[in-house]
């Protein structure tokens, strides 16, 4: 059962990713980008990391995808022209994929079935965030504040003196 679900979810994710990479119209690509993240979240749910899946939906679909579509809207100078796609750029990704697949298939120790574990609870993540991982938490907070201020300054209109 979970194998069938895994196959369906992976196919959906990869199809959406390919659509996001190759569709000529920008808005369709942005929307299939959101569908791809839905697929990735489903994969996380399947693997037992429910909190990460929910955070993924929240941040990526709720915030990053909305940011991207707003930016597309604000930089829409020549929407009629179809954006070109350069198939020559496909050489390196195919090579990278080939190399990674060779490395994965060559390592015998990764062909293992999943062991039985309890899914990690939100309470455990909260405990860890407040005890062992409190320094990364503070740093990420500072990073997000800096990014917020930086993004605001970047898009502020210059004063015409």
């Amino acid at each position, binding site marked *: 059962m979970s194998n069938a679900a895994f196959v369906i979810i992976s196919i959906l994710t990869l199809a959406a990713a390919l659509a996001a990479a190759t569709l000529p119209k920008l808005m369709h690509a942005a929307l299939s980008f959101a569908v791809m993240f839905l697929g990735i979240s489903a994969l996380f749910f399947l693997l037992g990391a429910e*909190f990460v899946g929910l955070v993924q939906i929240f941040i990526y*679909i709720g915030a990053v995808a909305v940011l991207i579509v707003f930016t597309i809207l604000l930089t829409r100078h020549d929407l009629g022209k179809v954006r070109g796609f350069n198939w020559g750029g496909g050489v390196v990704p195919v090579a990278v994929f080939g190399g990674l697949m060779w490395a994965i298939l060559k390592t015998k120790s990764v062909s293992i079935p999943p062991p039985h574990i309890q*899914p990690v609870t939100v309470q455990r993540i909260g405990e860890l965030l407040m005890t062992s991982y409190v320094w990364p938490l503070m740093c990420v907070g500072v990073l997000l504040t800096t990014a917020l201020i930086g993004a605001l300054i970047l898009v502020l209109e210059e004063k015409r003196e």
Partner: protein
Amino acid sequence: MTGHASGWLLQAFSSLINIGALLGVFLTLFALISVLERKILGRMQNRYGPNRVGPFGLFQPVADGIKMLIKEDIVPARADKAVHFLAPIIIAAVAILSLGVIPYGRNMTPFVIDGGILFFFAVGSATELAVFMAGWGSNNKFSMLGAMRAIAQMISYELPLIITVLPVVMIVGSLNPDKIVAAQGAYSFSVLPHWFVLTPWGAAAFILFFVSGLVESNRTPFDVPEGESEIVAGHMTEYSGFKYATFFLAEYMGMFAVSGLAVTLFLGGWHAPMSILEFIPSYVWFFLKLSILLFVYIWLRGTLPRTRVDQIMNFAWKFMLPMAFTCVIAAAVWHYTGRALQGWLWSFAVIAAVYVTLSMLLETKKKFAPRTYRFAE
């Protein structure tokens, strides 16, 4: 069905029963509320509501449904067909999905997820993308403008919505709605329930959550996205017939979901107000509290005028966000000074202090004073 394969089949069937029950109850409630709202609004405006179809007009939703279904489905010629088609579907799907984690009674939560509250908000945040799709897919400048205003309003109020939930999660220690309801189950002197709305931080958080929920579901007084006199119908302009009915459905489902969550988080879920009244079934109490909240929604719609969009934004960022953070601090104060009378007084003092400071800083006395008139002499 062998014992090995029946595991997932059983799970699939039980999920289907859950989903069927949920859809049945809430679609009926939607039909009922759509006609009751018009009747209540009518009574508030000193007239009868719809009373022609059926006894007291209660079959009006059937007539409305037939009307919506037989209307011609007009799609603009240069609209993006796929995006235009998918937008109402996604909005309605997301609204109904968020109904699945609310506990409706003892052992009556459709889907128990460990991070249930986070699921609710994560799924609700996909509404913004769908609103944008609706506005952009219509190929209409007014739709686009309406969609941008709607998204700005929704994003601004998402923050107070989530931060006011934080005190409850902090005090209970879990994101599971079942545990949150269970934490409100005790009674003091068997008359006073331990609902979170009866604490100072809980009352403030409930009011803030309720107002943010009003804004998130685009209801009057915050219905700028669908204000007819301003922007035709905003992002829903180019939708006719059944698709418009789907938007309408999504708005009401959003209302149900936010009210249901407010009942779960603050009003004690399916618990009775007094321990002697516990013989009445738990779902009756839940739907009674839900109905009271929905009545308040309709009451506000009939009473308050629409606010301007910049007033909405100001209100969110300058008032509700600081007050939401204050609720978190007040809850912590309540917890750490003992959850007794002393805790009450201290947390009430914290909230009152911040409220007074905010009103002084925002110059409410000057800006919201009664209007004075100067007549020509």
